[in-house]
């Protein structure tokens, strides 16, 4: 049955104060529309997990939604630091931020362990790094084959995972192409899953190419039709990454006041993504992707 609803309803129903929330998408398909709605609905005491907090989590920190962050790389890619994150960690402003730090590999394994209902997964990574000294969640085990010692990371079980994708049907069968990141693992690890998409399609479109389905409807709680829902991140085949936005963000967010001004104007000041698109105006035409279609394949027998 259809799980389609508005972003407002999806966040209201499935994201709660104090939740462990994951909004994934590695550079690609970052669910900014969902993040803004969480800010508008004033969720509090969230623990956020993500490989790269990126601007989306920096905005949630500045908006006062976040108690703790679990991450592996906290920067503005190719540009500089995340200023709200640094203010919170270095000066405890506006409030202290608890952090739990891994590496990309470690975060991916935490999601995969959670998705597989395993307590942990092992890796050959981590000998010699100081990370294992400051994060007690890293533990070692001895292999029962030979006796090598391996480092382990524990499973991560989000209360809710939110991902953005190119298309899904109303039941939540979701297809992605381009960078996969860890969306699949994060979704399967999670108790609830919200998917926002550029396009809601008939199931026949999904069924025409079943190998492209990344997340099955069976684990999806809500499907939201949210065009341009990833901006300033990008959607392969949809719109380009807004690199100017990321470059200019450094100045916008450097001072607490400027950061709040942005949130007032672009988040609190707008009712939803539709209004955001309207306000962005012609910018989205410039970002629109060129056409470079793949060779179709035959699924017949």
């Amino acid at each position, binding site marked *: 049955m259809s799980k389609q609803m508005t972003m407002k309803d999806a966040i209201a129903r499935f994201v709660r104060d104090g939740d462990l929330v994951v909004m994934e998408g590695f550079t690609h398909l970052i669910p900014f529309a969902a993040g803004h709605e969480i800010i508008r609905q004033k969720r509090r005491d969230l623990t956020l997990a993500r490989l790269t907090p990126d601007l989306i989590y920096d905005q949630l920190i500045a908006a006062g939604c976040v108690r703790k962050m679990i*991450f592996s790389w906290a920067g503005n*890619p190719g540009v500089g630091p995340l200023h709200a994150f640094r203010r919170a960690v270095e000066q405890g402003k506006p409030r202290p931020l608890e952090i739990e730090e891994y590496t990309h590999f470690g975060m991916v394994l935490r999601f995969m362990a959670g998705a597989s209902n395993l307590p942990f997964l092992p890796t050959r990574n*981590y000998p010699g*790094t100081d990370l294992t000294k400051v994060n007690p969640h890293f533990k070692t085990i001895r292999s029962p084959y030979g006796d090598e010692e391996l480092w382990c990371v524990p499973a991560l079980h989000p209360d809710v995972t939110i991902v953005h994708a190119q298309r899904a049907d109303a039941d939540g069968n979701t297809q992605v192409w381009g960078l996969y990141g860890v969306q699949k693992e994060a979704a399967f690890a999670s108790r609830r899953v919200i998917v926002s998409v550029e396009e809601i399609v008939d199931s026949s479109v999904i069924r025409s190419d079943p190998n492209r389905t990344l997340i099955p409807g069976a684990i999806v709680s809500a499907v939201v039709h949210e065009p341009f829902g990833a901006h300033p991140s990008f959607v392969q085949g949809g719109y380009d990454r807004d690199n100017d936005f990321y470059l200019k963000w450094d100045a916008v967010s450097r001072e607490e006041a400027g950061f709040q001004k942005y949130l007032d104007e672009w988040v609190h000041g707008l009712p939803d993504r539709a209004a955001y698109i309207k306000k962005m105006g012609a910018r989205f035409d410039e970002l629109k992707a060129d056409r470079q279609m793949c060779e179709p394949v035959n699924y017949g027998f």
Partner: protein
Amino acid sequence: MAEYTTSELMVSRAAKELKNGDVVFVGIGVPSLAVNLAYRMHAPGICMIYESGAVGCVPKRLPISIGDPCLVTGSLAVVPMLDVFNLYLQRGLIDVGFLGGAQVDRFGNINSTVIGDYAKPKVRLPGSGGACEIAALAKKVVITIGNSKRTLPERVDFVTSPGYLRGGRERESLGLKGGPELVITDMGVYRFDPETREMVLVSMHPGVTVQKIKENIGWDVKVARELTETPPPTPEEIRIIRDELDPQGIFLKSKAG
């Protein structure tokens, strides 16, 4: 002889570390420029892998993030990050990994996490990202960083990415293979002593003196017996860097002359 910037020299020098057919884990900035330069010069068979999951990339523009859409379009494969780390990196497929950081120490350990104490940092840096696993699992690592007492201390404040740790056999004793092979700075090039695993100055860029190096590094650095001069970039290399790789000068802002 053509004018060139120090950054262009670093890019040119880093490119020379890449062999045709190498599978290379690429980062943004100098590494990305170096790999793309090698690809256009002497290593057309190079395979570029980005931690975002793009394999065999042929970027039509300079990516400003490791997840740029131009890395996907026309690539040979796009894989889940789980595969990047398990099947490519941990499996031992990566010949060369490029890394930078805020600090690199005497034994090639890299800090990209904090300056000062972890619990009360003076400066909070972005953290490891994929750097720790690249340092631990790639067959060889090439490091690029500025040459100063601040960036090259005797001991990093925090070991984000393991080099040779406290030197000697410590890295091997922990089961790690590979390790840093080369450090390229804005003043010179360093390798690691096969016994002590300590950074040794092996070449200086044109115009740099040993004294200048010693004034800009955090310990009494050893100098190789046959110290050479770093070969400057050729006019063709400079042309490719300026006209093809970074036309807007996003990463190599200060042009020479």
